[in-house]
């Protein structure tokens, strides 16, 4: 029986190969296939000598294995390098600029989806086979299949353009100022006691997070429902009933907690779904986050930035699954690592 600390350490170490694998994949695929950041940025008018010089500066004239080793060495030092285009800004700065937007969006969407999922899932599981249950099952299937851009467009069109209820694009209105502390506008405006900013940021957040949240909620509805049903069929629930424990207590204190374990596991995996969905949401809502950024940089073959972003994504996913596992280990006493 290994202690929790050792387990966490193991998990942290395990993320290394994962990041490494993805990084290598992206590194080689990107370089083997045509497309060159130097040409992409100066392409139209520069002379071949100029291009060669730039390639040299960026180290792109070295043999591939050399570039790879250099890059890995750099990553090991915790440095993501600098962008290869435009301002050659440090990749970490670029990410730091955009990530809070994505984080804010994903957190809100996540909250929306989990709330919808829990409520509908628990409701459906207490009434299996009824019309309401079938309806919610249908909802979960349709919700997940709603193509994010389509749903986004419909919401923009109805709530934004026709009814003028909510703003449709961007993170805040131009005239409102929010001082950056964390880059999460909601949090920052609260920290600076800026109520106007908070309300404004919230209004801008609503449509994108509802779009993303609703689409992902289908997964949770289904999952919560099925794992609740699973748990409700278990012997210990019957045993609790046989002991005369009130039904509400059984449902909330025992069944939900047990059903939450598979849901939790799923949340870790779902996080990557959330990130993927965020790309489409960001594109639809002009959200200045990581997704739109990555798309832009892929087009320009900004090797370091794309690699850095992928590494960052991988670390993020790994970290979230680590957190999930730790919570998991806390909730479930059977996990003794």
């Amino acid at each position, binding site marked *: 029986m290994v202690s929790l600390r050792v387990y966490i350490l193991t998990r942290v170490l395990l993320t290394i190969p*994962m990041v490494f694998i993805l990084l290598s994949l992206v590194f080689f695929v990107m370089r083997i296939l045509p497309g060159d950041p130097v040409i992409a940025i100066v392409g139209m008018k520069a002379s071949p000598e100029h291009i060669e010089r730039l390639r040299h500066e960026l180290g792109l004239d070295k043999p591939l294995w050399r570039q790879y080793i250099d890059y890995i060495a750099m990553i090991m030092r915790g440095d993501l390098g600098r962008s290869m285009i435009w301002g050659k800004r440090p990749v970490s700065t670029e990410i730091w600029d955009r990530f809070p937007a994505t984080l804010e969006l994903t957190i809100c969407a996540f909250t929306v989806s989990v709330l919808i999922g829990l409520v509908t899932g628990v409701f459906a599981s207490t009434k299996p086979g009824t019309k309401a249950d079938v309806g919610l099952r249908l909802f979960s299937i349709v919700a997940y299949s709603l193509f994010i851009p389509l749903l986004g467009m419909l919401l923009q069109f109805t709530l934004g353009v026709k009814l003028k209820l909510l703003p449709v694009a961007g993170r805040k209105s131009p005239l409102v100022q929010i001082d950056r502390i964390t880059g999460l506008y909601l949090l920052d405006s609260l920290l600076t006691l800026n109520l106007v900013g908070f309300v404004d940021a919230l209004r801008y957040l609503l449509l994108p997070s509802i779009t993303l949240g609703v689409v992902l909620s289908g997964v949770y509805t289904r999952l919560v429902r099925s794992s609740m049903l699973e748990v409700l069929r278990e012997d210990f629930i019957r045993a609790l009933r046989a002991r005369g424990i009130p039904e509400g207590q059984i449902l909330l204190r025992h069944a939900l907690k047990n059903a939450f374990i598979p849901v939790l596991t799923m949340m870790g995996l779902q996080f990557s779904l959330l990130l993927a969905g965020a790309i489409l949401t960001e594109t639809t809502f002009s959200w200045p986050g990581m997704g739109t950024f990555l798309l832009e940089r892929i087009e320009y073959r900004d090797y370091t930035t794309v690699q850095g972003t992928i590494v960052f*994504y991988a670390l993020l996913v790994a970290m979230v699954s680590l957190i999930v596992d730790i919570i998991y280990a806390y909730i479930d006493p059977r996990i003794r690592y």
Partner: protein
Amino acid sequence: MRLIDPLARAIRRYWRVKRVDLALTLTGAIIVAWIIAMAALAPVVAPYDPYVSVDDVLLPPSREHLMGTDNLGRDVFSRILYGSRTVMAVVLASTMLSMGVGTLVGLVSGYFGGLVDRVLSLVMDSIYAFPGLILAIAVAAMLGPGVSNTVVSISIVYIPTYFRMIRGQVLSVKSQLYVEAATALGAPHKVIMLKYILPNVIPVLPVVFSMNVADAVLTEAGLSFLGLGVPAPTPDWGFDLRNGQRNLLAGYWWGSTFPGFMIVLLAVGFSLLGEGLNELISPERR
């Protein structure tokens, strides 16, 4: 008769116990079948050539153009019909590819175990944990647009799904007594894999497959929507949605709404099928 009879019996049994699931499955199957028929019959049914302009641009739906015309004067209805071919071709090809590779590798990896299995699992888990669409975007952008490239990028995303599923199943089947019995009989590895493990693993595939196809439909649409999928002017729902979206706010809703609706419909069809099958296949509780 030999086939129909058990089928009818199965349906009757399910009708008794799992009415809802059966209804879901059938609805899904009908939607999917309908779109497949659309794809198959597109050349016969489509009133116009989907590639060329046949009328004025941006005409609203009318008797001549059931779903109006797009910004190049092409018939949207015809493009929807032909678009189903693109989606079906790309999505089925890529999921089949993932299924083939994932199943094979998962089977071998899970059966033999050892270092290769560890490494493969690590690689597959890494890909699996990574956001699928982002991976597809990265690969598709690097490979460049094109049908086969799209197929490859989508399939890479889903190989781990099959790998993990199959490997997990193989591990559980491998520990079953009947596999041990087969080993004790002296059956060679190949025979054990093909006669004892594979047949017991395969039943999960249809469920995973249709769930996965539903997902792939959305991924394909996402890629096309971002301009990384099948290149124009091939009719493609995701692309047409994007294309039509440009004119949506000007009131030309038909150019994007129809393709968008079709994407959702197809994804729903496959999800219903998958969800229903999943419930039908899962053993009845006693």
